[in-house]
């Protein structure tokens, strides 16, 4: 079974990861490089490079406003047209990659750290700790995540850090559940019991046996989380919880451009495509990664 892309703030895929995690070792699927994956890899790499060194790729600075060239259709000067302030859409997208990636990666890392820790502890200790934690997580999950994001983001104030923190917090319990079932299944594998029989301490079992086995799943989760974080960030822009800045992220651009769709289609379309393509790519890669890194493949 594979993981898949979903609408931001999606929960469904977590269920799969949980189910996945609980599964018994299986022979590994074949690793086949298909054209989709190559394209996905190229897109993700491009976005990453843009995020790292936008200056190398962008023909204009994101702050270059040309009052003479407002809402210009794509042309030689403005490959993807210009926006309502005369900025170059192509350059905005390149610079926006960093912001979008920061939202995506940042929130993913936060949810992984928090959720991962909770899931690890609950799964490993089991018993009452597990029961209580899982109930708390149920509670957290019973509020649809979009609502949770809105409420928390309103309570905090919308700057980049808080947007990232909010998305991270909202997704953390999902990660916790994935992590927990992962730990539960690894915990019951004989080599863990073997290590216990040897007399290894809990800490060393966790660090040396359990964590390494969650790594591939964690990587996959990270990849997919980045995608969700980005979509969620875009949604926050729409609701008005986005961050206004010189280098707007793609969601913000799309949101700004949305009312120009009939008059200047390129303004919204290209940032939208950027998000969508990157999300698709990350999902495709995440899925491939999961298959590739599957430790069960080696175990079987």
């Amino acid at each position, binding site marked *: 079974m594979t993981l898949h892309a979903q609408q931001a703030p999606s929960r469904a895929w977590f269920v799969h990861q949980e189910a996945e995690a609980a599964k018994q070792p299986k022979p590994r699927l074949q690793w086949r490089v298909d054209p989709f994956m190559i394209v996905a890899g190229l897109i993700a790499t491009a976005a990453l490079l843009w995020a790292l060194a936008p200056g190398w790729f962008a023909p204009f600075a994101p702050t270059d406003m040309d009052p003479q060239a407002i809402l210009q259709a794509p042309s030689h000067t403005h490959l993807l047209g210009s926006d309502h302030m005369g900025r170059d859409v192509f350059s905005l997208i390149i610079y926006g990659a960093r912001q979008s990636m920061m939202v995506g990666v940042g929130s993913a890392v936060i949810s992984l750290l928090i959720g991962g820790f909770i899931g690890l502890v609950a799964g490993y200790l089991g018993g009452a700790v597990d029961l209580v934690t899982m109930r708390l997580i149920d509670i957290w999950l019973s509020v649809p995540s979009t609502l949770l994001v809105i409420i928390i983001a309103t309570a905090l104030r919308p700057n980049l850090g808080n947007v990232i923190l909010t998305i991270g917090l909202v997704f953390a319990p999902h990660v916790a559940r994935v992590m927990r079932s992962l730990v539960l299944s690894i915990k019951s594998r004989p*080599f863990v019991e073997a290590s216990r*029989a*040897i007399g290894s301490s809990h800490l060393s079992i966790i660090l040396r*046996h359990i964590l390494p086995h969650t790594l591939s799943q964690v990587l996959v989760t990270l990849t997919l989380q980045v995608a969700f974080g980005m979509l969620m960030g875009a949604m926050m822009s729409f609701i008005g919880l986005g961050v206004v800045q010189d280098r707007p992220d793609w969601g913000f651009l799309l949101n700004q451009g949305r009312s120009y769709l009939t008059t200047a289609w390129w303004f919204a379309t290209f940032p939208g495509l950027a998000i969508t393509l990157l999300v698709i790519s990350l999902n495709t890669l995440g899925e491939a990664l999961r298959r590739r890194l599957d430790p069960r493949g080696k*175990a079987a």
Partner: protein
Amino acid sequence: MTDLLAIKSLSVAFSARTGPMQVLDAVDLKIAAGETVCLVGESGSGKTATAMSVMRLIDFKGGAITDGAVQFDRHNLAALSQREMSVLRGRRIGLVFQEPMTALDPLFTVGQQIAEVLIRHRKLSRAASRKAAISLLDRVRIPDPEQRIDQFPHQLSGGMRQRVMVAIALACEPKLLIADEPTTALDVTIQAQILQLLKDIQAETGMAMLLITHDLGVAATMADRVVVMYAGRIVENAPAATLFARPAHPYTRGLLRSVVTKGLARNERLYSIEGSIPDLADPPSGCRFHARCPRAGLQCRVAQPPLELQGKSLVACWRPHEEPFTQAALTGRVISVAEPVRPSDDAALARVVALKKHYPLGRAWLGSRSVVRAVDGVSLEIRRGETLGIIGESGSGKSTLGRLLLHLERPTSGHVEFDGQNLSDHDTRSLRAARRHMQMIFQDPYGSIDPRWSIGDTIAEPLTVHAKLTGDERRQRVRELLDQVGLDPNWATRHPHNLSGGQRQRVAIARAIALNPRLIVADEAVSALDVSVRAQVINLLQDIKARLGLTYLFIGHELNLVRHISDRVGVMYLGRLVEIGPADAVLRRPVHPYTKALVAAIPEPDPARRASMAALDGEIPALIAQFQGCRFQNRCPAASALCREAEPELTALTGGRAVACHHPV
């Protein structure tokens, strides 16, 4: 006799990453109407692939028939379309799979699953098919078929599920039944029941049977002909009596020798075929067995031997054996093991006192608290230097006892003494320290080693935990240990995924002995291994024990094997110890009716001694119930009114034996 099924020069390949992988190479096989043919061979030799090809189910697994024909009645099955095949499947050819746990759709009642095939092939109405299904259940001897028919697979025991599978296969009275390891996952007593059932039904209907098994005992019991496969080829095909009396192919002989039989004396070293089965992705040239064959010559290395008639046997060998094969001949060749350490009578290394372990069932809140009584009042002692074997059917609590002994789990009540100290008195830290004297070897050689660790790290893990060694000392010790278990010391940096099951189990053993422990619990340590490899590992365990003066608790379910390795044997049933005593005495002259039944149910690889197998009726009851009286009463031929009232205590007999039975034999 006309051939019902004739497989001619069948070749099958799977598409693998590295290209096509030929798993069957020119297989020839014939089954006459009413005949039982057993297909035997080690894991991966292509037995299942053969069955699947006949059924053309191989197509769904990514395999394809690349050559040859499968003649069944008037059809060449290899050339039919899937649609045409589906008319034959289930109607003319029945199929029973190995795993009764997973071979039934968990979401449908057994009735629905039987009815389905009747509706499909015999065009019965719903009502009629239900009736027919009930009578089929009755025919495979499922009690209360009217009730059972509406139950779901998970509500049935493994044995019953396998009966349901048989019922499905028999629903349309097929001419041919293909059974792929139908009893491998079952307990011996249940295996005996199912095999008996198959025999009975065959006698009634006169169907032909292709029975796939890796157990030569089963083959001896069931087969008219035995076909031996090795690495995708048939190496020998002979009438059962001939094959067991005069195995011609060295591989067949090797297999037979590796089997631990009743007749084998305890202090003998087991025979084993050296090496392991080749990788089919890169099969060896010439005779595929030549690398492991003691008789191999130059010809064997370069030319593939044809399957040729020799006497009554078809053999594919350039240098077949001609002399008869006897147990005596085998015994004579065995090298004797080092003199075992004599168990001293009084010095108990470990003592188990009134030990109980109850597992709560499900999540026990807001509901009745039911428990599984996995171990329910066991007392015994393990003496220094001895091997105590524990046998019993699945679920009888053997593994739980093993884990309790090492205090991997806390007992519900009772306690364990190790070296005079009560383990329950230890705190976490001192318990961890105490662990260095007690180690465990697990059943699953694949699961019990962390696939991400190098072999060296795995073996060094106990050293890291307990011994303060420098890096060099540790590496040195790992090399020593690898050497001791017969692995190349240079393999320390390798990762386990390239290792065979037997090699992995050696790694596990090396890890277990790293700290020179005093007690090793080996829980089904060889059950997952092929016969030839199993013998290697057993020999290794024996050697190490002799060398290091270890004490073993050896848990297993192959009686002959346990008898071979153990000084004393304990028999468990439903969480209780029902009999204990010196191995030979208990297993050759059992006094408890249960032990007796177990012993009787073992199929011996000797067609001459075919017994009526179903030694024991009925199923093992669930462990949840609170028992009154003897736990064995419902299956016991000797049960009396007393047995229904009072639970028998373990009482000592002469010769160091004890039994828990009101009416010992």
